[in-house]
Structures are given as structure tokens and as C-alpha cells.
């Protein structure tokens, strides 16, 4: 139920500005419905008039009075009613098509805007695939439902109400006869839909498991082949595949059976109406013409009667998906934004010192990662963070850029807490080079000037030269205008890192954080990265998160972290002399013989 409320709130937010469109469409639909339900009465009247005409014409005494003009007149109205119907439906669906396209467009952009405002924490705790699915399948489901269901639901409701009114106006007995089978149909529909719901859920679960298995196995095909496990894999597959066959059969039958059942009910209903209508015509007090007309009209109604119910049941699944979709997107909408102080000051680099002061931090409440870390950095110094995986090195980087905020203690530039700075201004002062750099679709030049799209080509080339990637770029046929896409990369992992360094050099940050790439880089590229890093570090206050010690031997200060605490601090020589954890680490990595 809260699902429904959240979904309602979501749609209200995005659709309320289209209220005029909705009111006009609803009015138009009401009018078209009136046309559709009234039109058969004119057809009935035409038949009645024709019967009268034929009767008069057959009788020589009245033949002279026989006239077709009332019949013709009725027919013109009949046709005009359908013209009215077509026109109004056309305008209504035009309006709704516009509303659908533009409101889902706004939803899409709204979701993206939200994404840009949200805290990094959300992205770290949700898989990319899950967030992406909200942009793709959830928004798709909403679009499909609005595109198809909006008009149909309005139409179905209007038609149903209109039909009831007209039927009771025409003939109360026949109206009741037409409606007689409704309870049976509704019970059947409810039962089948409930069965279908559980069966389809089971089917989706099984399909999910099968697809998961296929994905895992085929992605690991190299392991299967090198271990000769293909037949085992096939046997495992067959189990899942047969399970899907079984549950999907039930799912497909139950969800597929509703439509023929309802169609059958409609057929049955028509038969009942004909049966009773003709009985009424023969035994009732009506004239033959009138009775005939009644049968014609009600046969038409009986055929229409189940259509709204049928379209509502066939749309049920779609609407269900749209509700879930809205709930999932609304969930994102309610995530907290990044905290940006009102009228925050703008830092001007680091004039004297950067201080990480007694910082405590935890990603999850109760699971503290940093336990009171204090680091003093003088302007222009290079600080290296060293320590085993999970020691908290990367966390420090997350805090300096305010991807996360400290729980206790503070980080300050020249004594000013970074949380009082304007968030964007702070980040413009801090440059980071990530371990796994992300490139964006566009040209190489676009990627290098990512942080400053207005930068001139000279500055781009200059940054590339400092990052040791210029020669490689020049060797490509389109040079700086070569298109980059993250999927089919022209860059190796090492070259990507160089690109990312170039990108950072161009923005000329005052404080620099370098997260060194770990593996997958051969020694020659590694040397290039080293040189590029030396270039970028020069003259800047910098933090280097090091995985290979030889990168940081020249650091002004090496901070050794272990389990969220600083255990050693000093220069390379000092730490070697101390003969502690660092010295051990160093000997393990560097000694060849």
C-alpha cells in the first residue's frame, strides 16, 4: 500500500503541471464515449425505420407514403457521431502522447540531476547495474504504461460508465440481462489473475536463476575449457533449464488464459442477450420493429460490454510494473543530497598547512575504519600513505575531497574546516587521479580538458606532454581528435592512468591526491607513469596512496596505516632505521636475491 502511495506521490510530482491536458483529454474522451454508446441506438433506429418503410412499401395501400428520408437522416447522424468520436479521440491521444513523452523526459532528466546531487555513499552501496536499471527498465515501464494505459484506462472507464447509462435508458430488463454474467466474469478474472501472479513470480525467479547461471558460466568459459568442464556445465544448465520450462509453462498458461476466457465470456454474453432479446421480441409487448431494433442495439452493447474489463485486465501487469518503477525511482529521489554550506567560503589553496586532526570515520555505523588519524602537511609537501589492503588509505582520499564527511575530528586548510567551504570551490582546489580512471565518450582532447572545457588546445597538448602521453596520442591517426569510448578502449590500463594524470594537470589543482594503479601495468609504462607523477606532484601539496613502495621513496613524509591507525610516520630513511612494519614491507617488496 505504501508502494502505491509513493508511486502516487511520484506521479503527482511530475504530472501535476499537465493538469490542463488531463482535463481536456478527459472531457474529449467523455464526449467520444458518448458518441460511441449513442451511435448504436441510431443504427437500431435506422433498422426500425427501414422495417417500417419496408412494411409500408410492401403494402400497396401505404406504398405511396413510404419514405426513406427519416432512415437517411438517422444514418447521417450515425456517421457524424463516429466522425466526432474519431476527431476527439485523435486530439485526446495527441495531447496524451505529448504529456507522456515530455513527462517521462522530465522524469529522466530529474533522475539524472538527482544523481549528480547525491552523496557518493549511495553509489558505493548500490551496484551500477541496479542504478542503471532505474534509468532503463523502470523508466521504460513507466513510459509504456503511460503510453498505452493512460488513454485506455480513461477510455475503458468512460465507456463502461457510458454504456451502463445508455443501456438502462434503452431497456432496463435487457440491461440487467447484459450485466447478468458480470459477477461470474469478475470472479474468474480475479482467480486467474491471482494464480497468474504467483506463477509468473515463480517463473521470473527461475528465469533469473537460469540467466545468472548462463552469465556466470559463459563469462568463465576460459576456466571451463582449460579445466575440461564443458559437460559438467551443460548438466548444471539442464537442471535450471528444465526448472524454467516447468514454471514458465504454468506462468504462461495462467497469464495467457485470461484473454480467451474473457473473450469467451463476451461471446457467451452476446449469446445470452440474443437469446433473451428474441424471447422478449416474441413474447413482449413491443412492436416487431422496435423489438428487432432492441436486439440489434443490445447485441452491439453485449459485444462492447466486456471490452473495458478486458482492456483493464490486460493492462494490469503493465500498471503493476509502472507502480514498482515509480516506487524505485522515488526511492532515489528521497536519498539525501550532498551537504553544501550556505554561502560557504572559497579556499585559496593551502597557504601554510593542511591538517587532518583526530579523524574518526566509519562507512557503516558501528564499524569504524579510521580511529583518530592525525596528519600534518606543510604547503608543498608530498605525503605518502602506505599500508595493507583495508588499512584506510583510500578512505583518507574520500575525506579530503568530501566524498564522505568525518564522524569526529576535522580536516582543515590553514585552520579552516573544509566543511565550511563551498563544496564546488573545495573540489576545484583538490585534484584526484583515481586508481581506475574513467574516460568519457568524446575526443581525447575533450577528455583532457574535462575539468575545464574552455581550455585551449595548447594547454591540452601541454598537459599531455607533462603526463607523458603526448607521443602516444600523436601516433594515433586522428591524434587529439581520436574518439574515445569507455567500452572499446584504445588505451591500455596504464595509458588510461596517464590520461587521467593529464586531465588533472590541466586543472592545476592546489592539492593533489594520487591513487596509484596497482596491477596490469608493465614496467615500461610504469616508468612513464612514475615520471608523469613526478611532474604533477612538483610544487604541489600532495597525497600519494602507494601500492608499490618504490614510487614514494622520495616522499617528504611516509605515513604507515594499519587497521585505521597510524603506526609509523617519517621519511624513508627514518622508517628504515626504525626497522618496524615499513622496513619489513620494504624488504619484502624490493629485495631480489
Amino acid at each position, binding site marked *: 500500500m505504501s508502494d502505491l502511495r509513493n508511486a502516487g506521490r511520484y506521479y503527482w510530482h511530475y504530472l501535476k503541471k499537465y493538469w490542463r491536458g488531463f482535463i481536456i483529454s478527459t472531457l474529449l474522451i467523455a464526449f467520444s464515449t458518448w458518441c460511441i454508446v449513442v451511435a448504436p441506438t441510431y443504427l437500431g433506429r*435506422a*433498422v426500425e425505420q*427501414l*422495417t417500417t*418503410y*419496408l412494411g409500408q*412499401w410492401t403494402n400497396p395501400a401505404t406504398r405511396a407514403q413510404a419514405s426513406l428520408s427519416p432512415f437517411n437522416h438517422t444514418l447521417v447522424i450515425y*456517421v457524424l457521431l463516429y*466522425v466526432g*468520436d474519431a476527431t476527439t479521440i485523435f486530439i485526446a491521444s495527441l495531447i496524451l502522447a*505529448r504529456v507522456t*513523452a515530455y513527462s517521462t*523526459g522530465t522524469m*529522466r532528466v530529474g533522475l539524472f540531476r538527482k544523481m*549528480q546531487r547525491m552523496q557518493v555513499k549511495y*553509489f558505493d552501496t548500490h551496484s551500477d547495474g541496479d542504478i542503471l536499471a532505474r*534509468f532503463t527498465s523502470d523508466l521504460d515501464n513507466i513510459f509504456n504504461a503511460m503510453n498505452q494505459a493512460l488513454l485506455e484506462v480513461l477510455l475503458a472507464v468512460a465507456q463502461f460508465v457510458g454504456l451502463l447509462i445508455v443501456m438502462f435508458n434503452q431497456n432496463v430488463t435487457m440491461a440487467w440481462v447484459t450485466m447478468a454474467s458480470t459477477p461470474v466474469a469478475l470472479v474468474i478474472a480475479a482467480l486467474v489473475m491471482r494464480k497468474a501472479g504467483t506463477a509468473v513470480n515463480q517463473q521470473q525467479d527461475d528465469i533469473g536463476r537460469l540467466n545468472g547461471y*548462463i552469465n*556466470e*558460466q*559463459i*563469462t568463465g568459459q*576460459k576456466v571451463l*575449457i*582449460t579445466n*575440461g*568442464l*564443458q559437460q559438467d556445465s*551443460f548438466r548444471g544448465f539442464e537442471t535450471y533449464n*528444465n526448472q524454467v*520450462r516447468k514454471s*514458465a*509453462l504454468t506462468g*504462461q498458461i495462467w497469464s*495467457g*488464459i485470461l484473454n*480467451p*476466457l474473457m473473450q*469467451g465470456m463476451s*461471446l*457467451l454474453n452476446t*449469446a445470452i442477450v*440474443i437469446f433473451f432479446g428474441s424471447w422478449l421480441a*416474441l413474447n413482449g409487448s413491443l412492436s*416487431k420493429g422496435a423489438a428487432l431494433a432492441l436486439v440489434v442495439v443490445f447485441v452491439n452493447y453485449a459485444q462492447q460490454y466486456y471490452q473495458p474489463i478486458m482492456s483493464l485486465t490486460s493492462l494490469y501487469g503493465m500498471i503493476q510494473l509502472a507502480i514498482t518503477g515509480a516506487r524505485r525511482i522515488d526511492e532515489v529521489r528521497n536519498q539525501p543530497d550532498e551537504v553544501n554550506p550556505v554561502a560557504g567560503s572559497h579556499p585559496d589553496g593551502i597557504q601554510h598547512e593542511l591538517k587532518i586532526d583526530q579523524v574518526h570515520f566509519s562507512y557503516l555505523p558501528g564499524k569504524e575504519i579510521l580511529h583518530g588519524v592525525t596528519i600534518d602537511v606543510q604547503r608543498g609537501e608530498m605525503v605518502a600513505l602506505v599500508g595493507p589492503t583495508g588499512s584506510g588509505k583510500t578512505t583518507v582520499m574520500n575525506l579530503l575531497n568530501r566524498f564522505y564527511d568525518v564522524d569526529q575530528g576535522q580536516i582543515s586548510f590553514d585552520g579552516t574546516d573544509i566543511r565550511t567551504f563551498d563544496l564546488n570551490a573545495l*573540489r576545484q582546489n583538490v585534484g584526484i587521479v583515481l586508481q581506475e580512471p574513467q574516460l*568519457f565518450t568524446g575526443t581525447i582532447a575533450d577528455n583532457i580538458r*574535462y575539468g575545464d*572545457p574552455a581550455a585551449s588546445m595548447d594547454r591540452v597538448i601541454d598537459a599531455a606532454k607533462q603526463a607523458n602521453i603526448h607521443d602516444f596520442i600523436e601516433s594515433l591517426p586522428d591524434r587529439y581528435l581520436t574518439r574515445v569510448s569507455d567500452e572499446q578502449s584504445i588505451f*591500455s590500463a596504464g595509458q588510461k592512468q596517464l590520461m587521467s594524470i593529464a586531465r588533472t594537470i590541466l586543472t592545476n589543482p592546489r592539492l593533489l591526491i594520487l591513487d596509484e594503479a596497482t*596491477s*596490469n*601495468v*608493465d*614496467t615500461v*609504462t*610504469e616508468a612513464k607513469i612514475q615520471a608523469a607523477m613526478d611532474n604533477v606532484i612538483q610544487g604541489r601539496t600532495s597525497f600519494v596512496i602507494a601500492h608499490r613502495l*618504490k614510487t614514494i*621513496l622520495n616522499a617528504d613524509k611516509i605515513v604507515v596505516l594499519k587497521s585505521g591507525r597510524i603506526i609509523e610516520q617519517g621519511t624513508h630513511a627514518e622508517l628504515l632505521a626504525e626497522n618496524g612494519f615499513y622496513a619489513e614491507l620494504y624488504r619484502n617488496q624490493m629485495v*631480489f636475491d
Partner: protein
Amino acid sequence: MKVLMPYFKRYRVDVSVALLSVIVLVFATLWQPRLLQVVMTAIIKDDQQTVMREGLLLLGLAVLGIAGGVINTIYSARVALGVATDLRSDLYAKIQSFAYADVETFSASNLVVRMTNDINQVQQIVMAGFQQITRIPLLFIGALVLAIVTMPEQWWVIVVMMAIILFASWIAVGRMTKYFGQTQQDIENVNTVTRENLMGIRVVKSFVQETNEIKKFSHASDELTAVTAKIGYWFSILMPIFFLTANLAVGVAVYLVGQNITVHPSYLAAITSFISYLMQILYAVINGGFLMTFASRAVISLGRINEVLATQPSMSYVEGDDATPLVGDISFEHVTFTYPGDDQPTLTDVSFHIAAGAMLGIVGATGSGKTTLAQLIARLYDPDSGRITIGGVDVRQIPEKALRATVAYVLQRSTLFSGTIAANLKQVRPDAELSHMRWAANVAQASEFIERLPERYEAPVEERSQNFSGGQKQRLAITRGIIANPEVLILDDATSALDAKSEKLVQEAMDRDLTATTTVVIAEKIASIIRADQVLVLDHGRVSGIGTHQDLLQTNSIYQKIYQTQKAREEAAK
């Protein structure tokens, strides 16, 4: 379609029942207006008996219709799921028969899409096919024939109606096809921007590019919105035109009946049934149109499935179930290899020999062909020329089972399958007991963390083994690699995520416990291969040097360079 025929044949009975029930359903639908006409005539004639009799017949017909519809659904589902399951099974068996090069040619993710989405498309179209595709032409032809029989003079009304409808659809579909193509492109653009921003959210934020990214996204999104709106507009006009045309046709028909009622008085009773037939023709055309677009997608999917089924594995093994391992001495004789689709060979004229039980280290820059060389030993590919022998036998002459029993290959990106640790180990050595697992885990330095897990060897491995760290994954992969005590063990940068200390411990344990195993170690770090009996230096796919660490330090300039880059800083710092 030809692809599906053999599958339909397997479900001959279900197919027949599904088709028969469609015919029953169509008959019930089409005959009703006919009976109605008889009833109406009887009313005009005051013939009570006929009215009762035909009325009951009508009820019977309706029940028949329901039965037909229900049975049709059940049997259509049986056929659709039977065909889809069998097709999926054959497809999977085919993929499992592929050589690795074939998997790469298609790409794993592409094969997964074919196994899932494409099969699903086919399943849906088969289901719809037996429910609708057979029904629509039958309904269409039946309604057309009956309409003409009912009022033969008015055949042209039907023809004109259909001409207008088809003309309108033709114009609209032409337009919309163009727009649909454009939506695909626009959706892709939107997704690309989203994906990049998701993965690079830290980059976006640290460079303060949120506003620009929103601009970029809005641009892509607005284009998509505009095209969807256009498609919507075309749809908006299509449906009203269809129904207006059909209702105008009804008007014209009734008018004509009126003008000639004195010639054909019986038509008075036929008006309602004629209208029903007209509407059924209309519905058949509309549904037919929808199904055509639906079917065209399924045809594409079927083509993609067939492409896989028609591919012959590019590699075959000699017959034989012999799984006896060979002796582990390996030699390469003038081996040259080019990846499918490349024009430059990755390996050129590579020759060397390693004695059984020895250790070979391979070093070289990224792209020098280290992994390729290792993959040729495991016969993931065959060389263009030259030959590779294990235990003196050309690898192409070794039965698959024997080869797999001889060579164990541990990849840099370690893949474990979801299940338990034990299940992963038993895949390679089905008779593995706890003692075997303990031994292997000890060598790989994995015991230390496995023993700390509450379920130990029965601990679950989640999908993408995300419940283990990179280093733990690699240690588990090494455990799996050695559990069968292979004759040949290839470690392809398999210790890259291990810290130096653990790596050293693994090496020492292997030296101690796997003395008979020939070990091929690919490494970035010289420290990893410094104790190898022989080190092979690869440079752009050629052997630049082979020898011990000391030999190469004296003689090989490339090796010296690699050594210097790894050593230099240390000396500089001293």
C-alpha cells in the same frame, strides 16, 4: 522458420491440438453473426421454435469458443516452452562445444544475450503464433468470405475500406520505422552518458562537472523525448483513422441496404452480421500489423540464434576418452600465432624446451605475447605454424580429457563459480577429500582465511565471488589449479593481487610440494620469477632471450631494462 521446423516436429501432438483449437475458436467467432441473422429472420417471421433452437445453438457455440480458447492457450504454451527449452539447450550445448576463439569471436556477453533475450523473443512469437498468427488469417478470410456471402453486392465497400486502412498504415509505418531507428540510437546515447557518470561519479564530482554533465544528458534525453513524441503523434492519428474508416464503411453499407431494401428485403436481418464481419476484418488487419512488427523482431533473434547453431567449432580433438596425464616436458618448435581477425602475428617463431618438473618464467612488456604463449600450451588456440608438444606429443594429437588432466591454468582474473569453495575444487578433482583440499589450500596460502570462515570449505562463493577480496580470489584460484596435482601448471600473473610476503610463501610451498610439476609463471615483477630454472624474455612476440636470471642479466638488454626499472629507485634512494 526452417530452424524451428525440427523443434515443432518434436511437439507434433501439441502443435496439432493448438491448431485444431484455433480452428474451433475461429469457427465459433465467425458463426455467431450467422446464427444471429437466422434468429433475426425468425423474429421477423414470428417463428418461436427456430428462435429457441438457434438461441440454444448460440449458447453452445459460445461454450465451444471458450473451450477452444482455453485449450489453445494451454497447448500453445506447451509448444512455445518446449521449443524454447530445447532451443536453449541445443544452443548451450553448441556453445560448450566451441573453442575459446569461437567464444571470443561472438564475445561472452553477446552469447549470453542470445541465450536469454533472443530465446525469449522466439518463445513469445511461437506462443503468439499459435494463439494469433494462425487465427488472424483464418478470421480475416472467414470474415471476408462471410461478409461477401451475406451481402454480395457490397464487396467493393470492403475493398475500399481495406485499401484506405492499408494506405494509412503504409504511410504511418514508413514514418515510424525511421523514428524507431532513431529512438534506438537516442536510448543508447542516454545510457552511455548514464553509465559513464555512474562509473565515474568521483571524477565528475572532483572536477565539479555536474552542470556540464546534466547539460550533456539533457541534450541526449531531449532528443529521445522529441522522437518518442513524434511516434506518439503518428500512433494518435492511426487508430482513429482505422475506426473511422470502418464505421464509414458500415454507414455506406447500411445506406446501400436501405436504398435497395425493396429488392433484397432479407438484408434487413443481415445488417448486424455484416457489421460484425466488417469489424472482424478490421481487428484482423490491426492485430496482423502489430504481430508483423513483433514477428520481425523475432526473426532477427532467430537469425542470431541460428548464427551460433550453424557455427562449427574451430578446433577439434582426437577421439578417445583416455584421461591419463602425459609427462610434463614442454617444447615449442618454431611456433607462430596470429589471433583471428588480426593481420600481425602475436607470436613469431617461438622455440624453447622445458624439462618435466622445471620452472619457466616468462617476462616482457604488455602486449609482448606472454599470455598468448601460455594459452597455446593449454590449447585455447592452435598455432598458425610450428608445433607444441607436451610429453613429446603434439598437443593437437592429445585427447581433450588427457590434455585437461595434464595442464592446469590459473588465470590472472580468477573466476570462481557460485556455490561453495569445496564445489569449486571438486569440479576439477571430483574425488577430492578434505585432506586434498587442505593440502592445496596450504600451498596456495588460502588455508589461513578459509579456516577462519564459519563453514570452512563449505563456505558459499557468491556470484562473481564478490564475498572474497582480490587476493583471496587469486589464492582460491591457485588452490583449484593445484588440487589435482597437475603435470603442468600455468600461473598467468596469478599472484598479482597478493602482497609480496604471501607471494613468496606460495612460491616456497610450491617448490616444496609440487616438485614433479612443470611450472610456467608469467609475471610483471622479476622477483616472481627470479628463482626459475629458465626465464624466457618476450619482445613483440619474439623470443629475445632465454636463460637463468643471472645469464639474462649479463646478456639480455631488455631483461636488464626491466630489471633496472624495478631496481633503480631503490638504489637511487640509498
